């Protein structure tokens, strides 16, 4: 549905995108992740035909954003980081305007507006002026205007920015609900939200794709060594020496817990748990717990980008 090949964009001398390539299939929900200035918004602005690429080609549903921007615009709905709302308009009036602007036949506009207000939980606010709505509701209206014409592709730039936790949860549900009818590409700094909503993540850094795949695939590819947590009973120095002495095991931390036990974090290749348990037993250390540490996408993000200012 979306294909980018060698996508490059310069702003003056600065290279914002550097031969970026990716492919997104129909019906997928894909998250675009990266630090500030990584190029996420630039990608979305090119896909929504607001910017032309300096080099490379991007197509949406087979249409080139450079050569057939109007055709691309017919196929997309776009929510920028700041929802494009006219404060004096009512929710219903604004959505009707957005639908007509997206060339929906006038006979279908009232039905489409009613449907999208129900889908986005805006029915109660239909007569409210946009300027009087809360940030969360404004963001819902932003999503509603992006899907009111039932586009094939929905592009959302930081849709959860500035929302409180409850609103984030509601927005997550809203985006999940788009899966049935649309291909969705959205950017976010809130990496845990990406993991919960997306089928796939594209991680970009300095205008290049650093990694892509599901959360599990990314871990499998980039994190061959697992991180293990051990809870031990015994002397700290002895435990340190024993753990460091097991082949291929890297001791990351060892701390004494208030209840008199030790908590150790090690990194080891898959399949080294048995060797670790045996070494502890032979050294007379009491092994109370041995398990893999729970990782989130945040850890992966920090690891892949070397922790350089990660969100």
């Amino acid at each position, binding site marked *: 549905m979306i294909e980018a090949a060698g996508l490059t964009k310069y*702003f003056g001398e600065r290279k914002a995108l550097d031969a970026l390539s990716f492919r997104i299939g129909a019906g997928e929900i894909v998250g675009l992740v990266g630090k500030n200035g990584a190029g996420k918004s630039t990608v979305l602005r090119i896909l*929504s*035909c*607001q*910017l*032309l690429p300096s080099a490379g080609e991007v197509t949406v549903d087979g249409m080139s954003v450079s050569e057939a*921007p*109007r*055709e691309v*615009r*017919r196929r*997309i709905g*776009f929510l*920028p980081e*700041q929802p*494009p*709302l*006219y*404060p*004096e*308009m009512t929710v219903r009036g604004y959505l009707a*305007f*957005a639908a*007509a*602007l*997206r*060339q929906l*036949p*006038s006979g279908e506009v009232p039905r489409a507006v009613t449907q999208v207000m129900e889908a986005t939980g805006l029915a109660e606010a239909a007569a409210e002026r946009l300027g009087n709505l809360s940030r969360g509701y404004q963001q819902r209206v932003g999503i509603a*205007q992006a899907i009111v014409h039932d586009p094939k592709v929905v592009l959302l730039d930081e849709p959860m920015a500035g929302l409180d936790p409850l609103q984030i949860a509601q927005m997550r549900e809203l985006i999940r609900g788009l899966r049935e009818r649309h291909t969705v590409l959205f950017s976010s700094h809130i990496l845990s939200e990406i993991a919960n909503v997306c089928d796939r993540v594209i991680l970009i850094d300095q205008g290049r794709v650093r990694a892509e795949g599901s959360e599990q695939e990314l871990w499998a590819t980039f994190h061959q060594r697992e991180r293990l947590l051990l809870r031990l009973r015994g002397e700290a120095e002895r435990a340190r020496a024993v753990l460091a002495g097991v082949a291929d095991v890297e001791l990351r931390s060892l701390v004494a817990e208030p209840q008199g036990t030790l908590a150790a974090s090690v990194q080891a290749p898959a399949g080294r748990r048995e060797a670790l348990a045996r070494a502890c037993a032979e050294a007379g250390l009491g092994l109370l717990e041995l398990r893999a540490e729970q990782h989130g996408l945040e850890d992966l993000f920090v690891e892949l980008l070397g922790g350089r200012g990660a969100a």
Partner: protein
Amino acid sequence: MSGLATIWLIARRELAAYFASLSGYVIMAAYLLVSGLLFNTFAVGSEPRLSQEVLEQFFYFSSGMAMVSGILLAMRLIAEERQMHTLVLLRTAPVTERQVVWGKFLSATLLLALVLVISLYMPALIFLHGKVSLLQIATGYLGLLLIGAACISITLLASVWSPTQLIAGVAGGLLVALLLISWLLGRVTEEPLKEFFVYVALHNVHFRTFSTGTLHLRDVVYYAGLIVVALEAATRSLAAWRWRE
């Protein structure tokens, strides 16, 4: 949806915005108040005068009001969208830049036409004291609409270039002022520049005929041409943002 329907859609939203934000009411009220004062003070006066002279004077100062109103109405058209981050809605919709520009121009011109219609009570008052040529009124009002619409199109162009409404208003005002005084350049230059500067002057040659009740096709063509050129420049400038950024 046809191109004209899209233009009308954009114009309708703009018209509603003028009244929702009160700027439309304020501009209309200011126009009518100042025109009324000028009409009473200078055009009517206390001395007996020919109706034709009264009307000529009425159209003379009304043209100034139409120009100022045109600038005030047009300065927000694109610059405000940029300030409010709403331009993206138009730029990501399957509409052309030309439809956006003409839609916005139409809204401001319709509002100007509305205020001109309301101001008709002033020349109508002359009926109480003398005979009035309806043809002079009709041509005078056509002139007011054309010169006002020309100022709208010029300021709309400035609004495309400007980051804020205020800058758009100042830039539009400067462009209009340059066109107003270009006939002075005609005095200090030789042919063919002399003829050019005199011809492009916004008011001097072209408007006077309207106020006297004379309709010259060349003057209508001048204003229509100026409007089309300014709107086409605005269209191209708006489209160029995709390349420029």
